[in-house]
Each structure stands twice: as structure tokens, then as C-alpha cells.
């Protein structure tokens, strides 16, 4: 199975990835080969498997909804990573259209 050009464009759009024409072609055939390979799972009988079953023994862990002060030195490092900063706030490109 090879994903056709429309399929792979659709997946790339859902994935929020801009891809070149060459990439679209390459990934189309590579993903097709991988999907063919994983398709062997269709042969496994899973009729009686309860997929809602959670793996392991973990339970919900509850924590109090409490505000913790953040260490100022750490705040400084975090802000230093921002691509834009103004008055101690992260400045981002315009997102409202």
C-alpha cells in the first residue's frame, strides 16, 4: 500500500508539517511500506481482549490544587529561552486572525 499524494498531503496538514514535493513523495512510499508491515496485526485474534484494561497497577494520583511560587532564577532561565520578550512576558507572533 502506498499513500497517494492527496493522502500524504492530508496527513502532513493534520501533522502541522510543511513538506517539500520531494519529502511528500519519499514519506508517501516509506509510510506505505511501514503500514503494510504493521498490517500483519489484522491476523491476530483480539476479539476477547478488553482494550479498556489499563496496563500495570497505576491508579489516579491526586494532588491539591495549590499555587507554588516559582524560583526567580528559574523564571529567568525560562524567559531567556523565549524567542521574544517584553516586560517579563513572552512575546509571540500575532495569533488572532
Amino acid at each position: 500500500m502506498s499513500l497517494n499524494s492527496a493522502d500524504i498531503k492530508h496527513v502532513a496538514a493534520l501533522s502541522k508539517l510543511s513538506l517539500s514535493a520531494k519529502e511528500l513523495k519519499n514519506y508517501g512510499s516509506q509510510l506505505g511500506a511501514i503500514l503494510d508491515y504493521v498490517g500483519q496485526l489484522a491476523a491476530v485474534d483480539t476479539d476477547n481482549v478488553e482494550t479498556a484494561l489499563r496496563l500495570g497497577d497505576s491508579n489516579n494520583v491526586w494532588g491539591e490544587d495549590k499555587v507554588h511560587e516559582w524560583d526567580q532564577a528559574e523564571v529567568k532561565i525560562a524567559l531567556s529561552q523565549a524567542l521574544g520578550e517584553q516586560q517579563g512576558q513572552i512575546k509571540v507572533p500575532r495569533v488572532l486572525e
Partner: protein
Amino acid sequence: MNLNQLTIEEARLLLDSGKITSLELAHDCLKRIKSLDKKIKALITLGEPEALSQARLADERIGRGEKGTLLGIPYLAKDNLLTKGIRTTAASKMLENYIAPYNATVIAKLEQAGAVLLGKTNLDEFAHGASTENSAFFTTKNPWDLKRVPGGSSGGSAAAVAADFCLFALGSDTGGSIRQPASFCSVAGFKPSYGRVSRHGLMSMTSSTDVIGPLTKTVADAALVMSVIAGADKFDSTASSVKVEDYQAGIKKNIKGMKLALPQECFGDDLSPEVRKVMDQAIADFKKMGAEVETVSLPHMKYGIPVYYIITPSEVSSNLARFDGLRYGYRAQNKKTDTLNDIYLNNRGEGFGPEAKRRIMLGTYALSAGYYDAYYKKAQAVRILITKELEEALAKYDAILTPTSPHTAFKIGQQDQDPLQMYLEDIFVSGPALAGLPALSVPAGFIEGLPIGIQIIGPKFQEAKILGLGAKFQEATSWHKTKAKI
């Protein structure tokens, strides 16, 4: 002997008796890194000033009479573990200059224990791969043959331990990423049970299988590192509160009478005669020590890879959605960005490498409308069958033995254009990862001068037993004592 060649156990004795200092130990490791990493390329970042100041601090603590398992011991960490103030890149262009504001829990625990962080090691981008060839920066070389890969994704950590750059290294294992490079580089690589070690501060790849673990020169050293990094954590609700075992006592236990299972599916006709010979010898060694070995059948094990390559991309597509280059990370320059969607498309299209993109798309596809039931839901169902099968076998047997990898290290560039071929690397290591079981790779021999490991898989949260089997194997064999000539 240069101090960087020591095991943790050996260094501990010398540090505690005052024969060496942590600073001397760190100096020898740094010297080794500076003279050889040009060839090996195991490190992305060297943190020399930080390491020297941590070593001085450790010496002060030792001087005050403080005792500690890893106090003053130099180590390296895979570059997907957050280190406060030291760059953490995930080997991705997306985070090339990223500096974390806090330490991962394992890094914080090691700092508290007085271990000395020397730097950060190379990996496949975001830990996607089995060779380090997917690193956005460079490929790490295997110390046993510089034309070959060290394995991956923790390839930088495995190569660094094999080349004596450090006394131990941390890696992460999602579907074999500690064990396979350990096999390729002839070091011990231990993947703890899922939830045994906190994932807080490990960059999320596949949140349902990601685990942090040690790569060490001996299995006994792996037990020492585990004793410091294992345990519950308020920052990771999946870090288990099951009591941490006494690993030091565990590795001393006699293995006489222990029952070991050999899955016939892992020792079939497609296993190369050379690998089989190494495995037969290792199995004979276990028998000599009094272990009972029986063949079993695990018919669902062969579905480990197809399940893994649905579950993993699905979780990857979700976990990597956070990287959009809006607030931090990679931002595309000189591109037409009229809309918010354009910004996302360009930043992500340029910032991620090919394998990350492949996995994001594969996961997005498997989770998308119309395909969810056929792929994701089906894979989860088969995952439960694989898990039950392994758990049932481990209710009857103390451990399961398999080769870690179907072959020794392959040549750089040999299979990097064929993603499916690369996925098949995980054939023996993906099952225990999907089931959340502890598994260890121990050096078991050489084929034409290249190392190969044996994998020991155990029941959940019984790491002491698995480490014990590995430690006893190393008392009976000397494969781990042979060093790569670089």
C-alpha cells in the same frame, strides 16, 4: 591505570580511603574525552567548569566524612534529560540552543548524591532511532569499529562508557534504546520496569513505555546507580510507590535453582549461527552456575515490532505537538507567514528531522478518523496479549533469556535510508518495553571482533533478580573486561 578506566565500585573504595579525589577522577575523564571525542563524537555538550566545581564540592563532602554510593563519581547524561543551566538539545534543530530551567528528577537525585555531571551525550533526534544517525548534529562512532554505529538511541552514552569517558552514563529506553547500544558497545545496559524511575524532566517520547536507566561497565555498577535513581516522585504520577528493593543484597544472591526460559521464537532458524553460538555459550554458563534452562513458546512476541511502531508514533505525534516554535525553540526565518497555521507548518517542517517527521505523520495517521480502530486500538489489544504472555511465562520462570540484538553493530549509512529495516532492530527488545518489564543487556561475547549482548528479562519490579543474574554471569565470564582499542 588512568582513573577514568575505573568501575564505580573500584573508584568508591579509592575515594573513601582517600587514595584519589573526585577532582582527579573528573580530570582523567575530561582528559580522555578531550583527546578521543574528536573520533568518537559521543558528546553534544561538555560541561567542564560545572563538572570541576561539582567534583570539588564532592571532595569537600567526602572530606567531612560523608559516605555515599555515587559521591564524587563522574557521569554523562543522554541529551534528552533536562539539566538546569546546561544545554539540552534532544539532538534536534528544534531545541539546538535550549536551556532548561530545572533538572530532571534523576539529575537532581544524582546531584544530591554528589555524582559529577561531565556533559551530555548524543542520541537519535528525540530518541527516535537505533543508530544515532538520526541526530540532527552528527553520528556517534562505535569505539569497537569507527566505521560502525554505536546503536541507539542512547548511542552516545553507550559509546562513552565503552571508551571510558566516564564511570557511568544515563540513557533512556522506550523500545530498546539502552539495551541495543549496550549490546553493540559491550557495556551493561539496564532498562528498569516502567515506573521504577521517575520520568520527570525526560523529554517525552512514548509516555507509556519511556524509562530512564544506567549504562555501566559492570552489572554491579548498574545496581549502584539504580539504588540512587529508583523510586517514587511527586512530579511523576506514573513513578511507582512500590518499595525499592535492596539491589546490593539482591545481586549477591545465589542463582542456583533459578528457572530461565528460552523463547523458541527468539532462537529460530532466522537467528544467525554466529549469534546462536554466543548465546549457546552464555546459556551453558548459566547452567554451570546451577540455573535450570527450559525452552518455552511466546507466539505473540513476533508482534512486538508492529505494535511498537503504531503505539510509539501515536504517542510521539501527540508529545511532539508541543514544539511549535512560537514561544521557544526553532523558528523558521524569511518565510511567508500570513496565518498562525503557516507559522506552525514552517517551524515544524524545518525544525524536525526526517525520522521525527515520519513518526509524527505515522502516528497522526494511526490516530486519525477512520483508522483509529484498525491501527491504534488493534495495537493496544495485541499489546495486552504480548504483556499477558510475558507475565504468564514470568510467573513460572525467574527470567527470560534472548539475544539483545539479532546481529552486531552495522556500518554507518548501511540502512539509514530504509526506515522499516531500522525498525526491525528492535525485534527482541520491544516486547519487554511494551509490557513495562525490567530487562538487562550484558556483554556475552564477540563475533569477528564486534561485541554482542544477551538480554535478561524479568518480572515487573523485580530488578534485583535480573541484576543478580547479570552480576553472577559477569563473575563467571570476562567479556566485559575486554576493552575497545581506539
